[in-house]
């Protein structure tokens, strides 16, 4: 079974600084999708960024970018110029192409200090 591991239960960053959240996953498949979701205190689940495994180029969305290392099965999220609104739980998730079940990591709580 596929598993997703987030080794950092909590992280903190100063406003305007850069922070990287770690995620590793275990799969024997070659075609899959990886996601980062943000969950603010409102409980809403918000898609931050998505990466298709067949794409070598790392995905970016404004201040959010990933470092996708397929051989190492690593998928880290970098948040640049951190803002107070970035404070939230962040979940890494995996989905096997053709099977839309999302497998989630346990989450990383990000605190942004002013």
């Amino acid at each position, binding site marked *: 079974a596929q598993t997703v591991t*987030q080794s950092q239960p909590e992280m903190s960053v100063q406003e305007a600084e850069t922070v990287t959240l770690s995620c590793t996953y275990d799969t024997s498949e070659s075609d899959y999708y990886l996601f980062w979701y943000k969950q603010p205190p409102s409980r809403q689940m918000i898609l931050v960024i998505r990466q298709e495994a067949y794409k070598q180029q790392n995905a970016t969305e404004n201040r959010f970018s990933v470092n996708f290392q397929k051989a190492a099965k690593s998928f880290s999220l970098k948040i640049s110029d951190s803002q107070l609104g970035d404070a939230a739980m962040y979940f890494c998730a995996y989905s096997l192409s053709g099977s839309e*079940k999302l*497998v989630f990591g*346990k989450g990383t709580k990000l605190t942004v200090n002013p």
Partner: protein
Amino acid sequence: DAGITQSPRHKVTETGTPVTLRCHQTENHRYMYWYRQDPGHGLRLIHYSYGVKDTDKGEVSDGYSVSRSKTEDFLLTLESATSSQTSVYFCAIIGGPGLATEAFFGQGTRLTVV
């Protein structure tokens, strides 16, 4: 926002009573999912549906049943609620086979079993 709503948003119930949570979508998506979220566990899949009357178990299905008589509605039932089922429950819809583009989540239901 995707048209997906959960009801109720909050519920307190007594041990041993039956509870039904409802997920309603207006997107005509074939696939629907129920997850539970607990501190330190991330989101774990309870049950999912790949069509009307077509459902299957996830990783934490014990004590739960589901039904889907219409495309738009996916019901989660706790036949006899226990304190271990105190959790936040999320319904999600995800693109069809091969799409896996994005999951849309309901706002969540906070269930407390006393």
